[in-house]
């Protein structure tokens, strides 16, 4: 809208559009515009049949001079009184430092004054200065309305002269800061019907700017019918409120996801990003609703200087987390730099660079098949496209549409991730259930149970006391397994006890002695159930001849950050086993069970190897601690 909104927008672009660039076009940009048209013409000439090109070319050459004439006039704005619904932005200012009451007069010759160019002068804050411009009113004025000018956030204090007559005063203009009285942020200056007769009028502004830290630059003052100015203000206001609403609900929603969904940090980051955006737009809307003193407005603008890059960084962190980027702190550092550097160098706080970086990360995530990353990329590109459109001067609605599209895509992306997490959770639950069943099945499977029962029968004939001991150890083993079956980890000491019971039982069955020695086992260590039990079962199957005694050894070593379990056993058949091709030893049901258990309990941070070593078979399991 006015000059102040533009200055705010420069600093917190997340929800606002810069009008600076639109301003450019009206002056010298007519040249670049016509250049663009010529290039377009050239391109079109290759596509369209010749007759149509001619028509098109003629049409364009008719329009261009009009455009140039309208925008390139020297210090003279034109406003057609008979056409309502439009605003003329007064921008071709001439200026001079100093203070002289004569400078207000319409017939004063300001030819020698300096010209204010878009985006060039950086105003230093000393003393009083004057600005002058002229407007030609044409046609007949509307009977029901009066003209007005809209001033927003230019400077600390100013006086406005219409054809030499003081018509408005905001604050108190002074040459030194102590004497200056800061005025309000916004002013709508009404022009009486008798002042706005057709013809050329001079507008002069006497101002000082000693209470605002930020220097001001090229500025444009909208002139038009009062109702049109009010309409524009309302339109702007409603859009900002809508933007706030969108961000506010996204903020609440993702915060609820964070609270209710297992405190996952990405949701918190997105919630914070939305909150920062709400604050950013809120500052703007707040000042528009309640016309505050320029001093406070100035500090609020500074606040938004911090909020905008911060929101960009939060957004980037959100993407770093949901895209599961490796070396996330490194990426966070980069985006922080990308957010701050444009602000320091170009007074430009848009997260454009951050968003470009985020789209790069999205591409990486798509390659890694992270769910929802494609949706997120579409959202980011959508937002970027809106920003680009915006710089070209497309209306505010486009920006709001960009925000809505972006938030929708992010939510869709989040929901895809939640869906995948649910699926993974289901799979994990099923796997746990399956492992438990496997554990129980191992002991009611016929090979174990029926052989044991037959063994009991044979011992009853041969030596009843041994039969009783065998029954007891079978009962003991069943009792232990029943206790641990539903657990995902058990104390190592329980596992060792279970192994010993199993070895006793198998000893009776084979009529031999099996021993298990445990070396420096710490008491509090926990492991998934029946890991060693299964490995010992394997050992019994493969390592020993019938009637041969056996010896097993379990040890546990803690090194920096890892726990190293080792199971060793002897056996006369091992030589033969080692001659077999590796894949034959590999992947029996037992080993699959052990690996599945380890993966369930220590995902991606365990390793296991086995082989013939130092007169025996050795299995090594190494688990990295968190």
């Amino acid at each position, binding site marked *: 809208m006015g000059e102040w909104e533009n200055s705010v927008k420069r600093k917190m672009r997340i929800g606002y559009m810069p009008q600076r660039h639109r301003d450019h076009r009206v002056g010298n940009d007519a040249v670049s515009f016509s250049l663009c048209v010529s290039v377009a013409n050239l391109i079109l000439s290759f596509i369209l049949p010749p007759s149509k090109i001619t028509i098109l070319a003629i049409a364009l050459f008719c329009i261009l001079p009009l455009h140039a004439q309208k925008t390139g006039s020297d210090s003279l704005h034109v406003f057609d009184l008979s056409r309502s619904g439009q605003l003329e932005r007064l921008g071709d200012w001439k200026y001079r430092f100093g203070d002289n009451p004569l400078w207000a007069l319409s017939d004063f010759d300001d030819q020698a004054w300096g010209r204010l160019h878009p985006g060039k002068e950086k105003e230093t804050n000393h003393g009083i200065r004057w600005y002058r411009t002229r407007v030609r009113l044409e046609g007949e004025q509307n009977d029901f309305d009066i003209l007005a000018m809209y001033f927003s956030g230019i400077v600390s204090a100013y006086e406005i002269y219409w054809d030499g007559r003081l018509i408005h005063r905001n604050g108190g203009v002074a040459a030194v800061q102590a004497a200056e009285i800061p005025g309000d942020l916004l002013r709508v200056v009404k022009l009486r019907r008798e002042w706005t007769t057709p013809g050329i009028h001079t507008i002069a502004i006497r101002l000082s700017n000693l209470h605002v830290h930020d220097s001001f630059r090229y500025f444009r003052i909208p002139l038009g019918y009062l109702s049109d100015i009010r309409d524009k203000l309302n339109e702007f206001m409603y859009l900002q409120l809508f933007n706030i609403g969108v961000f506010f609900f996204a903020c609440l929603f993702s915060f609820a996801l964070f609270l209710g969904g297992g405190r996952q940090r990405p949701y918190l980051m997105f919630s914070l990003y939305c909150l920062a955006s709400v604050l950013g737009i809120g500052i703007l809307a707040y000042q528009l609703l309640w016309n505050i003193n320029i001093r406070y407005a100035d500090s609020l603008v500074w606040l938004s200087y911090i909020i905008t890059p911060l929101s960009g960084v939060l957004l980037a962190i959100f993407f770093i987390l949901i895209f599961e980027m490796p070396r996330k702190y490194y990426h966070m550092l980069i985006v922080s730099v990308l957010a701050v550097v444009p602000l320091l160098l170009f007074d430009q706080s848009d997260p454009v660079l951050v968003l470009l970086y985020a789209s790069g990360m999205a591409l990486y995530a798509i390659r890694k098949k992270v769910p929802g990353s494609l949706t997120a990329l579409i959202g980011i590109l959508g937002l970027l496209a809106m920003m680009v459109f915006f710089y070209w001067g497309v209306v505010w609605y486009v920006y709001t549409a960009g925000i809505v599209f972006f938030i929708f895509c992010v939510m869709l992306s989040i929901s895809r991730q939640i869906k995948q997490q649910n699926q993974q959770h289901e799979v994990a639950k099923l796997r746990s259930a399956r492992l438990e069943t496997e554990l129980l099945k191992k002991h009611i499977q*016929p*090979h174990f*149970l*029926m*052989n044991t*029962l*037959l*063994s*009991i*029968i*044979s*011992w009853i*004939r*041969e030596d009843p006391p041994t039969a009783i001991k065998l029954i007891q150890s079978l009962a003991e083993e069943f009792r232990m397994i029943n206790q641990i079956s539903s657990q995902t980890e058990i104390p190592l000491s329980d596992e060792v006890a279970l192994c010993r019971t199993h070895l006793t039982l198998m000893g009776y*069955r*084979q*009529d031999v002695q099996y021993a298990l020695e445990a070396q420096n086992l710490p008491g509090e260590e926990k492991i998934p159930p029946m890991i060693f039990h299964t490995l010992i079962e394997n050992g019994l199957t493969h390592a020993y*001849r*019938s*009637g041969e005694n056996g010896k097993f050894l379990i040890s546990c070593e803690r090194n920096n950050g890892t726990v190293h379990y080792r199971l060793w056993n002897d056996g006369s058949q091992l030589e033969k086993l080692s001659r077999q091709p590796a894949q034959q030893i590999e992947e*029996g049901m037992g080993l699959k069970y052990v690996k599945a258990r380890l993966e369930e309990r220590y995902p991606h941070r365990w390793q296991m190897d086995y082989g013939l070593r130092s007169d025996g078979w050795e299995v090594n399991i190494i688990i990295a601690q968190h």
Partner: protein
Amino acid sequence: MRILIVEDERPIAKYIERLCRQLLGSKIRAIDIQHSLEDAASFLFRQPVDLCLLDLNLNGEDGYELLKLAVSGSFHTIIISANTDKAIEAFRFGVLDFVPKPFDEERLSQALQRYFDRQSPPAEAVRYLTVRKENQNILLPVREIFFLKAAGIYVEAHLKNGRREILDKTMDRLGQILPANFLRIHRSYFVDLEAIAAYRHTGGGTYQVTLKDGRQLPLSRQKYKELHELLNE
């Protein structure tokens, strides 16, 4: 008779041995115990037996290889196993019986009886006979067999495709496991009933079967009656 018990658990092996002695008494010439399949194979190489009581864990891939190895021999095989769900498979490979663990005297007695009894067919008809060829055990589907002919201590299997294979089994032992559609028409011949085109009395107390491919086989007098009854039912 000579019996080989293959069982890795010593107490069970001893128990089986004792039951066998108890049940068969003086019929037994010798009982040997081996604790691994490998040892059993090398033992069989040195010492032929009549019956093998084999503990076989049929779970896992090598289970069937071992089964094929076991049934390719000239001896009868009785499987003693805990995996009863594999029993039907075992019968299809031509084992004499399948005894589920744990078993009692009665069940083992039944299985041993089958060795002597030529009438009662196994619980499930054999589907494959195993042929040993160049140290490999090749499965021969029973439905491919046209007729079987005695050839010394071996049996020659004539297949429907015209090929011939040598089986390391005696006629008597094959008779105990072959399905009911195979009739022993002569001391030296088993014929698939489906393969018979005609049979007649050729005079002088000799009888003849003509097969569908025109081949003529001798038919014994007692079997002429049996065949006549079977085909006119």
